[in-house]
């Protein structure tokens, strides 16, 4: 059965328009802002990988090649919206005001990395590791908006693999049944660790999972930030105005390893990856901007220098953060640690006393 779901692409891999551009695409201020943010994201992402390689943070999930999705999303979400992200969302988190050092703290094994200090992100969920579970949380957030009659949108992201898990599918279903103000953004980067997209699902698109839930679904070229931005803007408006949820499948490619603990050469060819590099979003927008005469090598160099400074400052802040007070492991389990469990704190104090000298903790 052929389902003619919309698919949107404005820019070819080489940056040339392949369709009439949306009206807002002549806002070069916006476009260069998006470009700058993609570059900043990429540099920060590469730095995070480097920090893992030298043991200064733990496992990290690079966003390399998928920056357009998160940057478009982060730039479109309103202050009052809530992001319910997954673990490959550095791009959007940065635009939500999550600080670089917080992201490093999180992957560096420190819970303070999920205690976002910027007010913009204050209601956003932390990174979600158990696949697809976040989709239901977003529906819960959207339900709260609906119960209170607020015009806010909950946005949740996930990968192609996540679309196979019951949580994602139950979330689509309840979003459709209740017409919740929620947008599901699928980063279909073609791989779930070593499992290719084709093994996840027998349907030709993931967007068509929307149909069984009675919600709107469509595809965009996730490497074309013009396309992502345009369709996401529509999706957010639609959801915000009570016109129902949207599932947006963004076709991208995971240029890096799944995480720093993975070695993607085990399961995919160098040729495939080389191909994918031809499609990547940063170069694509750059080529477009250069062709429009609003970007050049000088600006590029200045941008790179600025970004490096910003990233470096974040790394310093991260390294200055020190270790949490050890008692913090009890502080937030309950609003107040139950008196009935007082003994456990004593146990820990004794444990600490015994381990003095610190050979066991950093």
């Amino acid at each position, binding site marked *: 059965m052929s389902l003619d779901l919309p698919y949107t692409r404005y820019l070819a891999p080489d940056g040339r328009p392949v369709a009439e551009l949306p009206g807002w695409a002549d806002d070069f201020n916006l476009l260069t802002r998006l470009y700058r943010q993609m570059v900043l994201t990429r540099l920060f992402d590469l730095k995070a990988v480097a920090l893992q390689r030298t043991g200064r943070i733990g496992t990290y999930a690079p966003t390399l090649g998928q920056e357009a999705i998160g940057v478009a999303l982060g730039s479109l979400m309103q202050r009052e919206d809530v992001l319910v992200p997954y673990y490959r969302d550095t791009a959007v988190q940065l635009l939500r005001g999550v600080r670089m050092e917080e992201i490093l703290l999180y992957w560096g094994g420190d819970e303070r990395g999920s205690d976002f200090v910027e007010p913009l992100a204050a209601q956003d969920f932390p990174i979600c590791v158990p696949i697809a*579970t976040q989709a239901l949380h977003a529906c819960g957030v959207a339900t*709260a908006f609906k119960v209170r009659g607020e015009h806010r949108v909950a946005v949740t992201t996930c990968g192609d693999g996540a679309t196979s898990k019951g949580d994602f599918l139950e979330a689509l279903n309840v979003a459709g049944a209740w017409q919740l103000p929620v947008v599901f953004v699928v980063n279909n980067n073609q791989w779930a660790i070593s499992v290719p997209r084709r093994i996840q699902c027998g349907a030709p698109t993931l967007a068509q999972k929307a149909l069984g839930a009675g919600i709107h679904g469509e595809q965009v070229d996730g490497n074309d930030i013009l396309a992502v931005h345009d369709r996401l803007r529509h999706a957010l408006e639609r959801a915000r105005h009570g016109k129902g949820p949207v599932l947006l499948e963004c076709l991208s490619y995971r240029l890096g390893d799944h995480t720093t603990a993975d070695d993607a050469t085990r399961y995919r060819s160098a040729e495939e990856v080389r191909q994918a590099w031809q499609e990547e979003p940063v170069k694509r927008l750059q080529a477009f901007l250069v062709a429009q005469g609003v970007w050049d090598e000088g600006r590029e160099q200045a941008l790179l220098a600025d970004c490096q400074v910003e990233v470096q400052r974040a790394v310093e802040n991260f390294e200055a953060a020190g270790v949490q007070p050890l008692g913090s492991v009890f502080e937030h389990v309950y*609003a107040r640690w139950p008196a009935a469990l007082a003994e456990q704190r004593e146990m820990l104090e004794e444990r600490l006393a015994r381990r003095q000298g610190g050979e066991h903790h950093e």
Partner: protein
Amino acid sequence: MSNGKYTLVEAVNLALHRAMRDDDNVVVLGEDVGVNGGVFRATLGLREAFGFKRVLDTPLAETMLAGLAVGMAAQGLRPVVEIQFMGFIYAAMEHLVSHASRLRNRTRGRLSCPMVLRTPMGAGIRAPEHHSESTEALFAHVPGLRVVVPSSPARAYGLLLAAIDDPDPVVFLEPTRLYRMNPQPLLDDGRRLPLDSCFTLREGRDLTLLSWGASVHESLQAAGALAERGIDAEVIDVACLKPLDLDTLAASVRKTGRCVIVHEAPKSCAVGAEIAASLYERVLLDLQAPIQRVTAPDIPPPLYRLEQLYLPGVEDILAACETVLDYA
């Protein structure tokens, strides 16, 4: 609700009405909770009183129920989820263990999860397959959760109000076998009961009977039978299984020197084991006999023709009491 007397399920209903009236953030959701008022009628009248925006009949999906509640609670609502029977709670497990119980901890207190997940528990009502579970131990092991089991209308009322108030997630287990037993007078005064104290239902000096849920009633009956023989049993409704009020339990056993734990769940790795182990840690030298556990055997709840074999009965409790009393 005749003559100001309430059954346990009516007390639950009363508490839900009260909580919803007192706090607009309380929202009830689940399968059949709206128009139908719940399959046990625990949510009767809520839809009429508070409207469909706060009393949500949901699609049929327990993972979804728990996941929605996490999102709603993080937004400051106080969702009260009904899982239709405890046998259907397992699909909610991932959200309870990995999210509800940890959202506060993961975010250093930035977000929290004040949700209640209510469900009928236990055997003894000739119910169909999978409708007779007592798997409270699975929740009592999870840090960050509270687990509460009322065993009287008054405790159902006061504990449920407290659970809804509580800033953290609570698994609230309602013994189906008690739902319609013994209506009792109840004042709808909004008084909360503490969530980490047990309830001494009967004081005694000779031995301590610890129990929760429906088994509390057999424990009380056993105490009555012992009293006729001049033996003075203390009966405690543990009620709050996580965290456990071990101080009160230990004080009782220190006094009586003898302890029998009664629960409906299979024996191995149940909450009875934790209570026994913890009591020994605290009162070993005061014990006159090994603590006895009167429980279901380690088998799935049988279909109803043999369920009485599974449930600890008064005779079984009495036999255990004899064992601890006769121990040399």
